[in-house]
Every structure is written in structure tokens, then in C-alpha cells.
């Protein structure tokens, strides 16, 4: 015979004259089970353990998104402070973190909806506010739920290049993440006790409540299947072996000129003429002994090196390729740069936030950091940055500047 984890059964207590609320509390060991609203939500799935398990999964997904997002933010706004400088190794790090960022956010969509559905009755809790702590906890739900929905919705739109709004996506997505994580910390403080109960042994050993429809276990299984389905259907944009089944991925890592996707086209960047101009030259200047001005022919005549490096885009797709070209450190040496400092890499592109990028000393000195002239054995397509583009290990795609026309060394 199965017994309540503590106290007498509800039936016994009701028979002994307890109120229904009190009897449930005795049986379940929880405070504040909601007798007033409960009959409006008959499903047995509005359950503390279901909420706790979904909450834990969602908390992990949001934390992964937050940490990988922070990493991506500082990769695009590089710090050059000792150990905080972006590392050059492993070369695939950004590919993994940003792939995870987008995949975890996508998988969080069914988790968030299931979690909100599970706890939806609490929205109508009576009394609405029980005290100052309850008030703070409930107010924190506004940025938590609104922020969660906003981050997932804006992220999913962004990876398809869809911007129906008038704010800057990267700026809003970054700062809203801090608001969301702050609200999540308040929420964790508020639900610590019920979450621990829900995840604990007593709740786990309790038998499945009677009822029709999905069981709690079946519901969690369906939500896990939904998270798995949306992942498989999209993650092939970075996990190449899955590209055949990723029917809903915004990118296919094999589709594009020379088998590589493109984010900014030459037409979009307005460099169709300048990139093909016979007057093209690469300038190396700044804090150097002998400023250089090299034509494309002179670049081709310099020693060429190969590097197998991925293009890993902030939108979550990635594709590996074999690049060959001139080492940046060779160019800096040729120009007589006394010590390799930070380098500003400038594009022919005249407008736009990514027309130039900064490269820290570690990246500039790395032997795999190239001004690539060729990819996969062919001269670069103009959409990949002809005449030459930067390619360096462990940098976001937007920092792998295309149509490079100037390297400016900064002391």
C-alpha cells in the first residue's frame, strides 16, 4: 500500500474534520496548495515535480545561453587584458560555444512553453500577494517571463536575418540577457524550497497520480522529444553530419559559393567595384618601421601558407575550409613592426559596423592567422572576400574581415 510521504492520507484527514486545504497540506507537505483555483485546472500535470524538473532543464539552457553569449560578446568586443584576451587555441572554441548558444536557445522554446503551462495556475493564485517577499518574487516573474520570451523570439528571428523591430539586435539581446539572468537569480531564491522538494526522493518515489491523459512521465517525455526534434531539425547548420535532416536550419554549411555560406555579400557591402579594381592594394602601416603598399600580384608572390580553419558565425552556423595565403605576422615583420601589438584590420567596405575589426597580439602572431587569397584550392570568391580576407583561429565570423585593404599596427 502506498502512503503519503508524511502525515496521514487526505481522505483520513478529511474524515477527521480537517479542511481540504489543510488535509492536502498534511498529505503533500507543501504550503499553500491553491484550493481556490485548483478545480479550474484539473490536469495532474500542474505538479511541483514537473515544474521543478522543467525549471532545472530551462535554468541549465538559459545559463548555457548566457555564458556562451557573454563569451561571444567579448569575442566581438575583444578585451586585451592578460588572460582575458581571446585565446587562439583551441581554434574550434567559438564554433562550439556559438553553436551551443543557438542550439540551447532553440531547445529552450519547448522547455519554456511547457514550464509556463505547468505553473500557469499560479498566475491566478489567491491571495495575489502574501507579503513583501512574495511581492518581490512575483514582480521578478515579469522580467523573467518577458525576458525569456524576448530572448528566444529575437534570437530565432535574428538567425534568419529577420529584423521586424527598430532596436539594435545585438545591443538589446546582450543587455536583456543581464536583466533575464538577474530575474532568474531572484526566482531561484524564491522557488528553492519547492524545487528541492520536487527534485527530492520523496517526490520521485510518489506514485503517478490517477487520471486520464498524459502522465507526468509521459509529459516530460513529450517535452524532451520536442526539444530533441527542434534540435535535430536545426543543428545541422553547424553539425555537418546532420545537415541532411536539419530541414528547418536557416543555413546549410555546404550551400554557398565554393561550398561555404556567406553572411555579408560583396554586393551588400558595396565593394563589387573596389574589390576587382586593378588599383587594389594592401597597406600595412601604423606603428611600423617601413609602411608597406602591396598589390595583389605582390601578395601572391609572398610565401603562402595553409590553414584548416572554420568560419563560425555569430548566427550559429559554421563550416570548415582549407585556406591559403600570407601570414599576418610575416607581413608585420616585413613592415618592420618592432613588437607585434594590436592590429586593426580594415575592409574596402565603406559603411557598416563590421567594416573593420581589432585583433589582439596573440592572434596577430599566430602562424595560422592568414590574409587568405585562396579557399579549398580556388581563388577566393568575391563574396568570401576577394582579393583577400582575414582568417584566424577562434574568432567569430564577423571578425574575419573580408576585402582587407589595410592592417594598422597599434603600439
Amino acid at each position, binding site marked *: 500500500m502506498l502512503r503519503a510521504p508524511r502525515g496521514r492520507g487526505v481522505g483520513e484527514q478529511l474524515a477527521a474534520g480537517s479542511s481540504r486545504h489543510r488535509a492536502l497540506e498534511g498529505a503533500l507537505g507543501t504550503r499553500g496548495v491553491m484550493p481556490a483555483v485548483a478545480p479550474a485546472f484539473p490536469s495532474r500535470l500542474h505538479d511541483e515535480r514537473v515544474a521543478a524538473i522543467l525549471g532545472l532543464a530551462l535554468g541549465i539552457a538559459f545559463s548555457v545561453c548566457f555564458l556562451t553569449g557573454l563569451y561571444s560578446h567579448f569575442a566581438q568586443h575583444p578585451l586585451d587584458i592578460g588572460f582575458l584576451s581571446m585565446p587562439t587555441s583551441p581554434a574550434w572554441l567559438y564554433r562550439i560555444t556559438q553553436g551551443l548558444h543557438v542550439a540551447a536557445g532553440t531547445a529552450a522554446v519547448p522547455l519554456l512553453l511547457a514550464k509556463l503551462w505547468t505553473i500557469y495556475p499560479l498566475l491566478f493564485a489567491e491571495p495575489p500577494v502574501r507579503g513583501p517577499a512574495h511581492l518581490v518574487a512575483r514582480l521578478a516573474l515579469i522580467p523573467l517571463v518577458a525576458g525569456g520570451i524576448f530572448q528566444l523570439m529575437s534570437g530565432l528571428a535574428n538567425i*534568419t536575418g529577420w529584423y521586424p523591430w527598430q532596436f539594435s539586435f545585438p545591443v538589446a539581446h546582450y543587455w536583456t540577457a543581464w536583466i533575464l539572468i538577474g530575474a532568474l537569480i531572484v526566482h531561484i531564491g524564491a522557488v528553492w524550497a519547492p524545487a528541492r522538494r520536487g527534485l527530492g526522493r520523496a517526490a520521485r518515489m510518489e506514485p503517478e497520480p490517477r487520471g486520464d491523459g498524459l502522465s507526468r512521465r509521459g509529459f516530460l517525455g513529450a517535452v524532451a522529444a520536442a526539444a530533441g526534434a527542434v534540435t535535430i531539425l536545426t543543428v545541422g547548420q553547424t553539425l555537418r553530419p546532420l545537415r541532411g535532416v536539419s530541414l528547418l536550419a536557416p543555413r546549410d554549411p555546404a550551400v554557398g559559393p565554393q561550398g561555404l555560406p556567406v553572411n555579408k555579400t560583396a554586393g551588400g557591402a558595396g565593394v563589387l567595384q573596389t574589390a576587382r579594381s586593378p588599383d587594389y592594394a594592401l597597406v600595412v602601416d601604423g606603428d611600423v618601421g617601413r609602411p608597406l603598399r602591396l598589390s595583389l600580384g605582390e601578395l601572391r608572390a609572398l610565401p603562402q601558407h595553409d590553414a584548416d580553419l572554420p568560419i563560425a558565425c555569430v548566427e550559429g552556423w559554421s563550416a570548415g575550409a582549407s585556406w591559403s595565403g600570407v601570414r599576418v605576422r610575416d607581413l608585420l615583420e616585413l613592415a618592420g613592426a618592432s613588437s607585434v601589438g594590436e592590429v586593426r584590420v580594415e575592409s574596402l567596405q565603406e559603411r557598416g559596423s563590421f567594416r573593420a575589426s581589432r585583433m589582439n597580439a596573440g592572434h596577430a602572431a599566430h602562424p595560422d592567422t592568414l590574409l587568405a587569397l585562396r579557399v579549398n584550392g580556388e581563388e577566393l570568391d568575391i563574396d568570401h572576400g576577394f582579393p583577400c580576407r582575414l582568417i584566424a583561429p577562434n574568432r567569430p565570423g564577423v571578425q574575419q574581415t573580408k576585402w582587407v585593404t589595410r592592417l594598422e599596427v597599434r603600439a
Partner: protein
Amino acid sequence: MTRAGGDTRLGSEDDGGARFWVCAAVGIGVAGFGLYGLLNARLIGSIGSWLTYLIGGLLVHDALLAPLVVAASVMMIYLVPSRIRPAVQGTLVVAGSVALVAIPVVGGWGRNPGNPTLLPRDYALGLAIAVGVILVGGLLTAVRSARRPEPERAPERPRGW
């Protein structure tokens, strides 16, 4: 354990205590940093547009999507026989999630004629295939549950889940 039919099994939040107030102080600090950063970001563009989408998303969920799902769940009690209801519900959870995630790619509002590498697939077809596979899976599950002999009473679930 007997259960009073219909009551939800949701415990309430903590009503205070040191742990809550420490988390609240840290969390409000972190969120405040985010709000300060947002309001002072040079390149944010329209704050009003940000607020519209932030609150709009919340309202679309709480006032539209959630009530619709609740209404659909209630209708299902009357329309779908209880033996196959779990299969139908599970199928809808999976297919609904996939359809929701597919909205931006199927809509294709971000498509750029200058860049065919963005949104290169036929996503309506992809969604149809994905939902088709999910429906077949759901159908097989439903057939299996319908064929299972009716137990005299709901079976005791194994302990632990």
C-alpha cells in the same frame, strides 16, 4: 495515497528568509546593471520598440497562447477517447513546438535576394515532412494504446519516476 480530485500539486514560493533576500538583492543588482546598460547603450536604437516586443511577447503568451492551449486541452477531454489521449497530447506537444520554431524560416521574412545562402531550403516542405513524421509516430503510439487490453483500473505505476 488518495488524492482529492482536481487540485493542482503546485507548492508555493518561499515567503522570505535569508536565502531569498540574498538572491533577491543579487538578482535585482544584476538585472539593474542590465537595465542601466540598455538605457545607456549608444547604439540601442528605439527603446520603445524594445519595450513593445518585450511586453508584447509576454502578452501574446499569457493572454493568447496559454488560454488557447488550456481551451484546447479541455476540448480534448470531450473529443478524444481517454485511451488514445496521451498519444494525441504528446504528438501535439512535439508538432506544436516544431511548428512554432519553424515560423521565421517558413515565413522567410529575412530572405535576401542578394544572398541565396541564407534560408536556402524549401522550409514549408521541410515543416510538412517533419510534422508528417511526428504524426506517423503519434499514430503508431495511438494504435498501440488502443489495442492494449483495457485494464480494470488504472495500473499502479512503478515507484520512482
